[in-house]
């Protein structure tokens, strides 16, 4: 890494999007200053200034220049530090397109299903979300089976872009059942994905970064309770 490279990551401990960035930085062997944002009590001036359009974490500030949106940050890290550590994206254009496709799928379908299943306004909404979540999980199992060709990771023999994109969600995947009643990964239905999640979670670079699942469960339940109270208050 070039001398004088300054990196700061604005984040929040429970955010799967922030975790993705931490994972990527860890895999690349890059050092950075981490700043925990207090989303509830008030976002910092630096966050609001660095991400004026969305005011969201994660934001990676490299030598004073902010990069926003987790998938964009991942690609930025891969490109700006191309000579450092392993590459996240493959070098072949077609394989890159496949990796980007699955990253988009995870964000557009899987995450949307999770949002609906956990925070849907009605029980029907949530039930539909849970159904869509199952579809998404099974589709990813198919991706591992068909594109993975028996390799340990979505990236092949070693961790790649899709592994990091999905890996960021792992803490919540484990917390989901207790927090929101969303079924956790079933070894009968998605054996490859279960094996992948155990393998990925056990990696030396990954394990220390994973959030405490019981803390996530607590947070999830608290968010639901707050929403229920607000809804009850609003209807009175």
């Amino acid at each position, binding site marked *: 890494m070039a001398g004088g490279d300054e990196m700061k990551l604005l984040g929040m401990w429970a955010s799967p999007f922030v975790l993705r960035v931490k994972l990527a930085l860890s895999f690349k062997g890059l050092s950075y200053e981490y700043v925990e944002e207090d989303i509830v009590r008030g976002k910092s001036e630096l966050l609001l200034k660095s991400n004026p359009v969305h005011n969201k974490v994660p934001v990676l500030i490299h030598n004073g220049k902010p990069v926003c*949106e987790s998938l964009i940050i991942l690609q930025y890290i891969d490109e*700006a530090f191309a000579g450092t550590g392993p590459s996240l994206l493959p070098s072949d254009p077609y394989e890159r397109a496949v990796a980007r496709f699955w990253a988009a799928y995870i964000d557009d379908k899987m995450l949307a299903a999770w949002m609906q299943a956990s925070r849907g306004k009605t029980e029907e909404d949530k039930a539909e979300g849970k159904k869509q979540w199952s579809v998404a999980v099974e589709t990813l199992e198919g991706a591992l089976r068909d594109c993975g060709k028996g390799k340990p990771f979505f990236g092949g023999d070693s961790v790649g872009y899709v592994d990091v994109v999905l890996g960021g969600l792992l803490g919540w995947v484990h917390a989901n059942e207790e927090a929101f009643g969303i079924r956790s990964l079933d070894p009968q239905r998605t054996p490859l994905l279960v094996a992948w999640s155990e393998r990925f979670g056990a990696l030396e670079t990954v394990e220390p970064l994973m959030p405490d699942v019981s803390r996530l469960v607590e947070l999830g339940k608290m968010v639901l309770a707050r929403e229920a109270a607000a809804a009850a208050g609003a209807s009175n």
Partner: protein
Amino acid sequence: MAAAAGVELRLLGEWLSPYCIRVKQALAVKGVAGYEYVEEDLEHKSELLLSSNPVHGKVPVLIHRGAPVCESLVIVQYVDEAWAGPAILPSDPYERSRARFWAAYIDDKFFPSWEPFFKSKTAEDRAETFKNAIPAVETLEKALTECSSSEGKPFFGGDSIGYVDVALGGYLAWIKAVDEVAGTSLFDEAKFPRLAAWAERFAAADAVRDASPAVEDIVVFYKKMQAAETGAEH
């Protein structure tokens, strides 16, 4: 229809889809010609489409030497990387991250904020939804100012059409068609001078003209669409 084998490059699309339009624009900008274009009937999707995009079953799909690439922005980046020609994304990693940021904004924020206006049928609805679409347009005007710098370059990509230009460009013919029918001007020259100038320059570019549908054709379709829906309500 000829089998997929032997066809070097094929694009499965639908003439009205902004996502297909942007891929055609990107191919033209890159200088990729001679591909086979297949117009899909989305009510009766072809076997080729369903087998090439089993996850979503949607257009556009670019099939290169039999290998399918799906999702319009993924396709645009693929086109940029797989062929030599004018660069669609800049080479500097930070500039690339800004281009990706604005393209994501266009799809995730701008379009969803404009969509209700496109769907509006009454004058009251239109007034409300048009107003709600304006904040995102203000942000895009600022984005263009940021991307084109103080030198006032014509495109989001600077001197030449780039990633953000085609991201927004896919929607342009639709924006104009709806403006014509509704009597509005989304990229109003007085309020958003840079976007208005961009729209004109972009639409006039050779690569774009051939790749985009005629606004008049979309106007005809849009009017029919609105009339049909109104009729169904009664």
